[in-house]
């Protein structure tokens, strides 16, 4: 009896499997589309874990770094990455700032580690969590809109902060009200303000939104395809009794491999894009004529 019940519960349908893997570990269900009292424990846990991993290992490498002598091992890897970030920042950011390069490094490495979690087998971490009594677990923080929006809103606040710091409040406001239609006559200037506001505020707001949703969309779609590939062997190796089962197992391995290899490109590219766009937006915030 218990074995039968266990067997019945063991076989989820395709829809249930996908929905189970799309559910976050939260304190309670959201009451409506915006509910700020909901916390996604799994996103928070993995974000903090990956931040500690990245910052801790880089800090250790910096502490043990020898100025003389040939760097080897992890230190040379860290130097490779720092060099890469340095070159990228120098290309786009021509002003003085102590914040921009560490910010770019943090964004690149952190987002890359978020995305890298997507390459782990879909069922691995949720199964391990299940042994500890945790029902749902989503291990890729960048598939959580809240995480990506958190990062892009932070960048947005930095853009506003540096705009006001470099251009002054008047300069910041005039950037929205005096462009792109400029006039010499003060009356005409005032009349043109609504048009300028619309034409300037829309791209200005589109930046953080597109920054976050680009990362979210790419990673969510990637994770969804991994889940759909995993559906090929939904009933495990018990499908090996028929030809369909063999095709499922073989298809799962091949398609999973192909998609994972393509996904390696996507995760690196998305982390790089987030970083490059942050640098470019902050460079635009710093420039003043």
């Amino acid at each position, binding site marked *: 009896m218990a074995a039968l019940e266990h067997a019945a519960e063991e076989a989820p349908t395709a829809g249930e499997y*996908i*929905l189970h893997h*799309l559910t976050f570990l939260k304190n309670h269900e959201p009451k409506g*589309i915006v509910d700020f009292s909901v916390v996604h424990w799994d996103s928070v846990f993995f974000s903090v874990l990956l931040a500690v991993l990245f910052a801790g290992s880089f800090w250790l490498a910096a502490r043990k770094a020898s100025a003389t002598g040939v760097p080897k091992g992890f230190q040379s890897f860290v130097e490779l990455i720092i060099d890469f970030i340095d070159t990228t920042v120098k290309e786009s950011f021509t002003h003085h700032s102590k914040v921009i390069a560490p910010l770019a490094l943090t964004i690149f490495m952190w987002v890359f580690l978020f995305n890298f979690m997507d390459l782990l087998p879909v069922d691995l971490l949720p199964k391990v969590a299940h042994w500890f009594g945790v029902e749902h677990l989503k291990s890729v923080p960048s598939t959580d809109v809240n995480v990506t929006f958190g990062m892009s809103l932070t960048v947005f606040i930095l853009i506003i902060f540096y705009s006001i710091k470099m251009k002054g409040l008047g300069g910041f406001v005039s950037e929205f009200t005096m462009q792109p239609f400029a006039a010499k006559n003060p009356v005409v200037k005032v009349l043109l303000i609504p048009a300028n506001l619309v034409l300037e505020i829309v791209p200005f707001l589109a930046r953080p939104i*597109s920054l976050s*949703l*680009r990362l*979210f*969309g*790419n990673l*969510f*779609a990637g994770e*969804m395809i991994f889940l759909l590939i995993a559906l090929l062997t939904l009933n495990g190796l018990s499908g090996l009794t028929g030809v369909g089962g063999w095709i499922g197992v073989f298809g799962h391995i091949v398609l999973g491999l192909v998609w994972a290899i393509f996904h390696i490109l996507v995760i690196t*590219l*998305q982390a*790089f*894009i987030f970083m*490059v766009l942050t640098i470019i937006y902050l460079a635009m915030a710093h420039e003043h004529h």
Partner: protein
Amino acid sequence: MEAFATVQGMTVLAVGIIFGLGALGTAIGFGILGGRFLEGAARQPELTPMLQTKMFIVAALVDAVAMIGIGFALFFTFANPFLGPLAQTAAGG
């Protein structure tokens, strides 16, 4: 019952259109982008690494709205927000 089926059917059509038009735009965009990159690299081969970096940057920008569309389309597929109000009116009425 029929209202549910209608909403679900319409949602499926919408998801298909989102995917299709996004893919169409992205394909044309990448085709033009890649073609220009190859032309530039053929004219000045020493610039290829720099052009390649810039190409990837623009590629991610071209991809962006299509990906946002895919995110929404998958959201409609698995957590259709249009069925909620329908269920409420069905339960209430």
